[in-house]
């Protein structure tokens, strides 16, 4: 399929997964996964619950270790080596389903913690940077509040700003909107659309089909630990090839 080829194939891909296998105990959760994400490419991953979407995306910044195959992120292969780990974690930002903001730190401190201690940024510079991103996610006025004082949508936007403050080259999103109420989903998706327009490389697990249509270069459908089908949003949603994807889409559409 042509859409699986990254846009400019001469440049090395931002993320490359080759024959990745992973087991939890004896459960085979990633089965021979191959995926390549080019620079500035936006990939949306979807699939039924338990299909291994989170596991795959968490392998990309090595929150989980894979057991077989190769993962190369931004030219660095993921191994047990701590140095490669440090490099990856700096270059890859991640946004979680349930925000995971640090409740004992203010919004500003949440955003400046890693730039100060990992990027060794002077405090004033880190704060200016954080304010910059807080303005971009449209909540600068909350900077001195604590996470517990914010709504879910606001918290998720802070989480996005926090990840961006590390100036990552790649952003990973694991169902960023599924813990939110409908009216808050839009504000977070808008932020993500804005981010996509800046040319960020993004891998996003989501079931928001509208978002996928709007920004995704490619949609990847996973089921039972493997990538079953992938293609442009129009191909995938308009003309699904496999029965599994058809079934999945019908369930999603009925759900909405």
């Amino acid at each position, binding site marked *: 399929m042509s859409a699986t080829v990254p846009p400019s194939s001469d440049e090395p891909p931002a993320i490359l997964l080759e024959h990745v296998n992973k087991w939890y105990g004896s459960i085979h959760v990633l*089965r021979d996964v*191959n995926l390549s994400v080019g620079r500035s490419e936006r990939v949306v991953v979807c699939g039924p619950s338990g299909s291994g979407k989170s596991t795959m995306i968490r392998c990309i910044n090595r929150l989980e270790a894979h057991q077989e195959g190769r993962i190369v992120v931004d030219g660095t292969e993921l191994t047990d080596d701590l140095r490669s780990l440090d490099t990856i974690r700096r270059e890859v930002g991640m946004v979680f389903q349930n925000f995971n903001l640090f409740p004992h730190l203010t919004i500003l401190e949440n955003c400046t913690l890693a730039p100060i201690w990992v990027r060794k940024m002077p405090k004033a510079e880190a704060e200016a940077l954080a304010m910059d991103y807080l303005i971009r996610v449209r909540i600068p006025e909350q900077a001195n509040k604590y996470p517990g004082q914010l709504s879910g949508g606001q918290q998720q936007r802070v989480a996005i700003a926090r990840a961006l403050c590390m100036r990552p080259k790649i952003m990973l999103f694991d169902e960023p909107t599924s813990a939110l109420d409908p009216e808050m989903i839009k504000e977070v998706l808008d932020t993500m659309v804005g981010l996509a327009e800046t040319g960020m490389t993004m891998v996003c697990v989501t079931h928001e089909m509208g978002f996928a249509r709007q920004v995704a270069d490619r949609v*990847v459908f996973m089921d039972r630990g493997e990538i*079953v089908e992938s293609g442009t949003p129009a191909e995938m949603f308009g003309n699904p090839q496999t029965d599994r994807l058809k079934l999945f889409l019908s369930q999603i559409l009925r759900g909405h």
Partner: protein
Amino acid sequence: MGSSTTAATAGATPARQRPSAARIGPAAWLRANLFGSWASSAATLVLLYLILRAGWSFIDWAVIRAIWQVPAGAHGPDTTICRQAQGIGACWAVVGEKYRFILFGFYPYAEQWRPALVVALFIALFIVSGVRRFWRRELALLWIATLVAIGVLMWGGVLGLSYVPQNQWGGLPITLILATFGLALAFPLAVAVALGRRATSLPAVRLLCVIYVELIRGVPLITLLFMASVMFPLFLPQGVDIDKLLRAQVAFILFAAAYLAEVVRGGLQALPKGQSEAADALGLSYWQKTRLIILPQALRLVIPPLVNTFIGFFKDTSLVLIIGIFDLMKSGTVAIAEPAWQGLSSEIYILLAVIYFAFCFSMSKYSRNLERTFGRARNR
């Protein structure tokens, strides 16, 4: 390219076994849980060595070189062999000789089936109270009936049972009486105090309850027991005298009520305010609201911590030894004060520890089960 698995290969890639043989099975388990890393392996080896050494010397002392029986001498049992074996082997003969005394104290030997029956009744009462199917109003009646039966059995003087004055009671029944009567009587007081502490419209009552709870919780139980043994007699009119056990029981109730009140208050606080408002909106009076809506829910919430508090009281009854009441602990220490058996404290302490442990452990196991079932019910 990766996503070549499209329409053509709609069937799943077959699940494979994890590579590298040693991922599951006993060897893998050992690797993962005992020898996961350098430090872990070292810790495992050191601990194994220590366990084996300590375990072996304990078995050596408690089983292999233990003395199970002593010959009868001119004046009671002849304990010289125990004396010689001291520090080398345990003398379990002391348990065989003394267990009746430790369990029942100076209760007339021929009548000791009565305290034994009392202990059985207590245990049965606890077990029945632990079954959720029996959590009904009738349970209170059962408690009253059982406690009366226990009183009759211990004192006697009716139904053809000979009268046994209280100063001859001792051992495990005393411990159980102190703990159980203490809890049964402290509980209503605790509920009243907890409600009083939350009665915003009655500031004087509220203050009183706060002072009571903080005062009692601020001082050690032993000072309350001292108070019971030396100060209570001064409070009473001249000529009136109540016995020491009863005084200790009163102190114990006052003590338990303060701690239980805090537990109950926790339950009252955990209850959403909407419950109280809904009851008000239905036109229930304060007492109706409290009795029908608030307490049933609040108490249900705190059953696991209540059981934990009860375990604490059960252990704390051992403190009455200090004011000379003949509970299980006291009878244990008296048993080894006898010259023939002197110095055999380890054996007796182990016996006492096993008895206390059996009671407390089963209660805490029970409380944890409850917590789990309650947690599940709430998460649903």
